[in-house]
């Protein structure tokens, strides 16, 4: 061994060392591991392992009542699909429904009762205990100077009955439902026929022509699967009378592009043609008490005069009128885009009058009466927003999770007593309305608790199903029914309720005892007559495991005496100081709920649906305003202004501004995000409870 270590030795050692290491498996293993690491690093989630099972339930995101079949891993649903051959949905669920299992994991999920301290625009959320919140709510109810109101998103549920019972025991309680989209016209119709306690639906399956005034029939209306099946059957002709080139307008057989706000004029113009061309039978004429009066009103709406305002060719009106009478069965529908708000009552009446004039009520393929779900209590009817006096509500409890995308906060605010109101939100998520509340009590998220699914709007027969929980209920959530129970007991109101499940069982017992209808069982796709089910318990089991009860159709009756009570004069032309602003949204995304973050695929990554803060204008309007594609602009109305992005589309009518009321960019931003300002807040809410047209200006920013 050499005594002195020379440079040569060091070099030899280093060189040999490197060579040795290179020949060993170490560097190659490390190289390989580096690649494996990039495939498995902590940034990529680990997939769940476990048994794959199937479960059935129902979507409760909206009132559509769609059945869902869930693929689950270790009991956790990971993929939802429709139930094949389902009699109501025809195996379809909508885009939101596909992702409804995500809702429990929404980034805006609330996991503790909160109160909001400070002014609305910059309030802070403070966690509070449930007991304190309940005490405070009860105290405010006891001390209320004005009325107590509950806003119910999905009426006709069992909990709706509890709400109504609760309100009936308060002084001046008001039961409010969200502006209904599917049956706005039905309300008017019921009023004209004076049959308030009856339920009506549309016998689409037997109809030949549907004339729709802006109803988003092919864009999530009613039970979406029913409408798409109807469209695919090609047995029905769709005529869409709408100002926007909406999805429904696009898919309809005919689109009549009217000027927004002239729906009433067109309806009465059609009525005029029907009367003028003597297309109305004497029987109908006789049943209408104020027919002469109506005839006189319609005279004002002659084709020549209406043409000057609507720009719709009289020939087109003539053809529609002819079609309504000549086709075997026809239905005239109303119902605007959910973001656009409901029609005013006059318009609804004018549209409803067409159905009465052609006599389709109670007829096959027309508007039919349906039997109620057995055991549904009637009474303490909902009140329309327009019928609530301004500044009259002291305490408002908002059920569910109204996103606020289809109900401007300004409308609610108008009805609240200024500076002395109290809003409680029972929502699983922080959203537009719950962010405006004083107290927020987290309720179970979708598919976390057992719920009943009543008849979807617009259906011609009643149905009942259960939304069986697919997800574990979180212990921080409070069922609204328990909250109401607690509030009642603290405000000295005695309710005759037991546990929610008991109520459900009672309901099912009643259905079973009536021996009406059939159930459709999802697992084996079989139909069972209710009479063949031995016990209510078995019906309960079948419904929880995935089945829907469908009522038998009711025997139809003719309308009887009809009073139109319409007093519409031909509108004066008014000059607008700006452009009409038409708000629009998408059923589901703009109705009652927030959307799953995965819906960002549709809003953000395909731009298939515009996000909140995007306005669309025609190229001519763009030139007029000097705006460019995807440019920034300021949209201002009397109510304020906000920054928007301009989209230039030839599909938009020249001279109007279409504004999207879809969710915030990817549906996961906080509602009070400074840029997430809701366009709805710019809309002017009229005394009719609508916000259909606002005058707005668009300036290049």
């Amino acid at each position, binding site marked *: 061994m050499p005594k002195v270590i020379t440079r040569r030795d060091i070099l030899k050692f280093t060189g040999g060392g490197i060579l040795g290491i290179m020949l060993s498996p170490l560097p190659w293993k490390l*190289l390989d591991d*580096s*690649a494996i*690491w*990039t495939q498995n690093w902590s940034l990529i989630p680990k997939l769940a392992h476990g048994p794959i099972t199937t479960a059935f339930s129902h979507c409760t995101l909206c009132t559509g009542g769609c059945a869902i079949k869930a693929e689950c891993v270790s009991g956790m649903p990971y993929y939802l699909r429709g139930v094949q051959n389902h009699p109501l949905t025809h195996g379809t669920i909508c885009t939101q429904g596909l992702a409804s299992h995500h809702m429990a994991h929404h980034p805006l999920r609330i996991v503790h009762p909160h109160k909001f301290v400070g002014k609305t625009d910059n309030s802070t959320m403070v966690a509070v205990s449930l007991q304190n919140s309940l005490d405070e709510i009860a105290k405010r109810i006891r001390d209320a100077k004005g009325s107590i109101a509950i806003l119910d998103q999905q009426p006709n549920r069992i909990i709706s009955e509890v709400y109504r019972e609760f309100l009936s025991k308060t002084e001046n309680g008001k039961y409010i439902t969200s502006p209904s989209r599917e049956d706005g016209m039905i309300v008017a119709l019921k009023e004209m026929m004076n049959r308030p306690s009856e339920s009506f639906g549309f016998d689409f399956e037997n109809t030949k022509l549907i004339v729709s005034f802006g109803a988003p029939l092919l864009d999530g209306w009613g039970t979406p699967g029913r409408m798409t099946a109807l469209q695919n059957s090609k047995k029905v002709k769709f005529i869409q009378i709408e100002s926007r080139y909406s999805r429904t307008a696009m898919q309809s057989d005919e689109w009549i592009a009217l000027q927004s706000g002239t729906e009433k004029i067109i309806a009465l113009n059609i009525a005029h043609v029907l009367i003028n061309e003597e297309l109305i039978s004497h029987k109908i004429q006789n049943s209408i008490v104020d027919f002469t009066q109506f005839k006189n009103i319609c005279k004002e709406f002659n084709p020549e005069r209406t043409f000057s305002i609507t720009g719709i060719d009289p020939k087109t009106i003539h053809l529609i009128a002819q079609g309504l009478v000549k086709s075997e069965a026809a239905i005239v529908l109303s119902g605007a885009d959910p973001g656009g708000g409901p029609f005013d009552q006059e318009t609804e009446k004018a549209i409803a009058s067409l159905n009465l004039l052609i006599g389709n009520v109670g007829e096959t393929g027309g508007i039919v009466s349906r039997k109620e779900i057995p055991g549904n209590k009637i009474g303490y009817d909902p009140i329309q927003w327009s019928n609530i006096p301004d500044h009259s509500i002291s305490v408002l409890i908002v059920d569910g999770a109204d996103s606020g995308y289809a109900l401007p906060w300004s409308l609610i605010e108008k009805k609240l007593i200024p500076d002395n109101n109290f809003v409680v939100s029972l929502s699983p998520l922080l959203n537009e309305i719950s962010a405006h509340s004083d107290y927020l009590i987290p309720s179970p998220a979708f598919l976390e608790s057992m719920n009943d699914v009543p008849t979807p709007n617009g259906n011609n027969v009643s149905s009942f199903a259960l939304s069986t929980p697919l997800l574990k209920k979180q212990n921080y959530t409070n069922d609204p029914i328990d909250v109401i129970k607690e509030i009642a007991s603290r405000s000295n109101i005695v309710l005759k309720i037991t546990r929610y499940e008991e109520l459900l069982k009672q309901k099912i017992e009643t259905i079973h005892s009536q021996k009406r209808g059939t159930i459709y069982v999802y697992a084996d796709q079989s139909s069972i007559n209710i009479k063949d089910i031995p016990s209510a318990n078995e019906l309960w089991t079948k419904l929880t495991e995935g089945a829907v009860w469908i009522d038998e159709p009711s025997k139809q009756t003719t309308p009887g005496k009809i009073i139109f009570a319409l007093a519409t004069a031909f509108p004066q032309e008014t000059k607008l100081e700006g452009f009409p602003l038409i708000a629009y949204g998408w059923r589901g995304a703009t109705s009652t709920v927030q959307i799953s973050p995965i819906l960002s695929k549709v809003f953000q990554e395909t731009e298939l649906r515009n996000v909140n803060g995007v306005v669309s204008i025609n190229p001519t309007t763009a030139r007029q305003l000097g705006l460019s594609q995807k440019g920034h602009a300021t949209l201002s109305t009397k109510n304020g202004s906000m920054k928007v992005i301009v989209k230039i589309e030839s599909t938009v009518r020249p001279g109007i501004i279409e504004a999207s009321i879809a969710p915030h960019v990817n549906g996961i931003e906080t509602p009070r995000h400074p840029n997430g300002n809701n366009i709805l807040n710019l809309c002017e809410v009229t005394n009719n409870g609508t916000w259909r047209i606002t005058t707005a200006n668009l300036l290049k920013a």
Partner: protein
Amino acid sequence: MDKILIPRGLQRTSFWNFLLWIIPWIALLSLGIYAIYLCLAEGLFHTNMDNRFAFGIWIFLDLTVIALGAGAFFTGFLLYILHRKELKAVINSAVVIGLICYSGAILVLAVDVGQPMRAWFTFWHPNTHSMLTEVTFCLTCYLIVLLIEYVPIVLKNRQLRQIPKFLVFEFELHKLMPVLAGIGTFLSFFHQGSLGGLFGVLRGRPFAFREELGIWPSTFFLFVISAAAAGPSFIMLTTLLVEKITQKKLVKPEVYKFLGKVSGTMLIGYVLLKSIDTLIWINSTSPGNGFPAFEFYATQSFGSWILFTEIVILGLIPALILLSSRLRENRKLLFGAGFLVCSGIMLNRFVMTIQTLALPTLPFDDFLTYSPSWEEVATFLFVIAYGMLLYSFTFRYATLFPQERELSLLNGELSSQEFVESSKQKSSWQPKFILNLINKFASSKL
């Protein structure tokens, strides 16, 4: 301070001046490192590239830089294989520039790919049909060759050469240089070509797609020739730049003229072939795919002027200047033409990358725009700064221009002449030799 590292007899600015010169580049380098860190550690969302504009400024500049760095292989080829001794004056500089360009490009590519740790997969399961495989293999090999070629330059540093083994190794390696130059030429031929082929094979991009000649699209050959044309011009320009910055004469004027002539010869061939290729593309390839070629130029920003500029203004004109020995005599024209050549190659690479991606393919596509993010620009500035530093250090501590020592006479010309005058009378010896030398240099125009 660092005098013991500076080659004997070469005048270099003081260490403090040098420090002042490199500090801004180090600052830029640090900014680039930060940008690279962001891209590698957090993801490529730091860039403004997207799914439609999947290649951005990085790929464009990589192609440009590799084309300009072609001087290394082409000079090596001319010197070692064709024995054009004139080029000995710039070969070291060409090798360093080549090394900077190639290593910089590879570094940017490593940032550009989403999973750089998997880069070796290409060697493990290569798709031999892919032009990118060819590029990867050749670039890797050629970078190794360039590094080996760079080693002698470093080993000849004044201190390192004191170690006998190093100097002997350098000497032996230098004797084998023609082998490496040959391999380098072969590799460069293929990767320059494959880089052109990258876009030429894109059947789905009718703007870039070209007919095949053998197994390669025509852009393969166009890229090789255009790189061979641009490389010498770029060496010409960089050498001039170094001369301007250091205020020294580094190479003899003949070298510049020769580089210009080489560049011009290659360029005229390129312009001819490019014109033929364009005509074939306009009349056959593009309409054959259902895309009338003129439609590609229908958009406002990329009109047909771009084609005219590329072929005529930045192609034919500099080629004619460089081919005329009379015009080459004019320094301004010579370097101006060199600049046009480099710009032309840059424009060509821009058209092939950015314009190709900006143009729509589907009938309902939009024309796309893209502007790089600061991270993308900073990453590229990193390469510039890295190149500047590597070149500066090499220039300071190694001999990049063998003629510099001789030519430094010209700097000392005045004082030498004064000396000659005075010594003629006073001294007993006659400095004939130095007189000859000075007269010889003074008579040759630069």
